[in-house]
């Protein structure tokens, strides 16, 4: 292990312990890590967005990349039309966001916001209707009594329960009727299915969460403590 890595591991270990200390109670070590984390991660995403969004989606199409002419060069030097020049509109929409710095004209930023919201609404309309609605309906249209070379009791029970579960839980989401009488009874069954589903998902996720902690603890024990001892020649 080289010196720089060892320094890095010590920093990582100290920061890990700072965050863990939050479990006991709020304290200056957590506060230190918290402020550092917010700052560092905000800086991270600024640099990331510049390199992964702004550069490839705005700067390079207009001004060119190494070995590739940008739209401006094509238009003004070669005299040909280049549709990448439309990216200018994106730049303008982006610039409207900067008007938020000045409260008097902050409303200009609504162009950027409205564009983003509209785009998201269009995309959500299609994506949700497709993947979460039609595909899920299709998955529920299954035979309640299954015959594969004779009656299959196990599969039939599973399918019937699934169908009853989906239908009753959907009734729970019915808003324009009071949940009384038959509708109320079915909705009640729906809630039970929802509760089983939540309990199951909770129980199932416990393992993934414990795994994360194992990862951190192994880092502290193996990389930090054992690593340092090994670097000092004690292990």
């Amino acid at each position, binding site marked *: 292990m080289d010196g720089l890595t060892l320094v890095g591991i010590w920093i990582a270990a100290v920061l890990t312990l700072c965050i863990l200390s939050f479990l006991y109670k709020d304290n200056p070590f957590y506060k230190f890590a918290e402020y550092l984390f917010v700052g560092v991660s905000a800086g991270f995403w600024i640099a990331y967005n510049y390199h992964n969004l702004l550069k490839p989606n705005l700067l390079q199409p207009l001004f060119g990349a190494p070995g590739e002419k940008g739209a401006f060069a094509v238009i003004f030097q070669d005299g040909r039309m280049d549709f990448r020049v439309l990216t200018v509109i994106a730049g303008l929409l982006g610039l409207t966001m900067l008007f938020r710095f000045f409260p008097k004209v902050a409303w200009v930023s609504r162009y950027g916001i409205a564009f983003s919201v509209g785009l998201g609404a269009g995309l959500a309309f299609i994506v949700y209707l497709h993947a979460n609605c039609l595909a899920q309906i299709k998955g529920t249209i299954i035979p309640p009594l299954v015959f594969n070379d004779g009656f299959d009791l196990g599969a039939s029970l599973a399918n019937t329960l699934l169908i009853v579960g989906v239908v009753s839980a959907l009734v729970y989401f019915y808003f324009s009727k009071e949940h009384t009488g038959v509708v109320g009874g079915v909705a009640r069954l729906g809630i039970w299915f929802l509760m089983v589903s939540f309990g199951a998902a909770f129980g199932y996720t416990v393992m*993934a969460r414990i795994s994360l902690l*194992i990862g951190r*603890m*192994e880092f502290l024990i193996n990389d930090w403590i054992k690593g340092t001892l090994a670097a000092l020649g004690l292990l």
Partner: protein
Amino acid sequence: MKFVLWLADIDRRILFLLIAVAVVVPILAPIGMPVTVTPQSKSIYDEVEALPPGSNVIVSFDYDPATEPEVHPMALSFLRHCFEKQHKVIIMALWPQGAQMAVRALAEVGGDFDLEYGRDYVNLGYKPGGDIVIKSMGSSIWEVFPRDMAGRSTASLPLMAKVQSLNDVALVMDLSAGDPGIPAWVRVGNALYHRKIAGGSTAVSAPQFFPYLQTGQLIGLLGGLKGAAEYETLIKYPGAATRRMDSQSVAHLVIIIFIIFANVSYFISRRHKEGAGAGRAAGPPGTP
């Protein structure tokens, strides 16, 4: 009675401490609990066993350091199994950091076998685009990955000379921590090119892939750390996942015991003093 009430409203930091102990002790002193193997893991193992030696297998590394504890052990034991059966392994990544994870995995496993780069395995590196990458691999892998991770021409590698498109691949193993990952391979690799797809995923994502198992779009699935430990058991090479399962078992046990305590104390305290349940009603709210 006092104890019961204390237990019902215990300081959660005591619980935190017990969880920490439950996780740390088995790391320091492994117990070695046996792992039962589920059919969905066994079917991946059986598939690799059944392939004729020298078959081409793609391993797609679609995870990053954040999910390393769960997914990386799967990569290690799957690679180990492939190399044992002398299959040819083609590594690729749909996640930016996946290719690095593959380099680490090869460093950890490769030493135990007599392997030659380009003949026994290749690392094609990362390619952004998810579905589109897989779709293009259906017509030509050489075009999607003109060069391998080290910058060598893909077509010139002896192993890849025989693998021109997905049609030349016997099995795809996707080690996935999210999107793009298993769904992309199922949608494109299986639906369009009829390749056999196996998957390994984090425990959080695993339930959403069960329907694919039902329909046979996935031949098998390793779910979370448990799935990784199962594969280690199958290839008889217990490693990190089996060790970590000890921590899992103990931590689960702690939580289960506490749930039992909570209910016992809840019932005793309720009988003792009607309606004196500890804490605020935290049951399933929002419902009548």
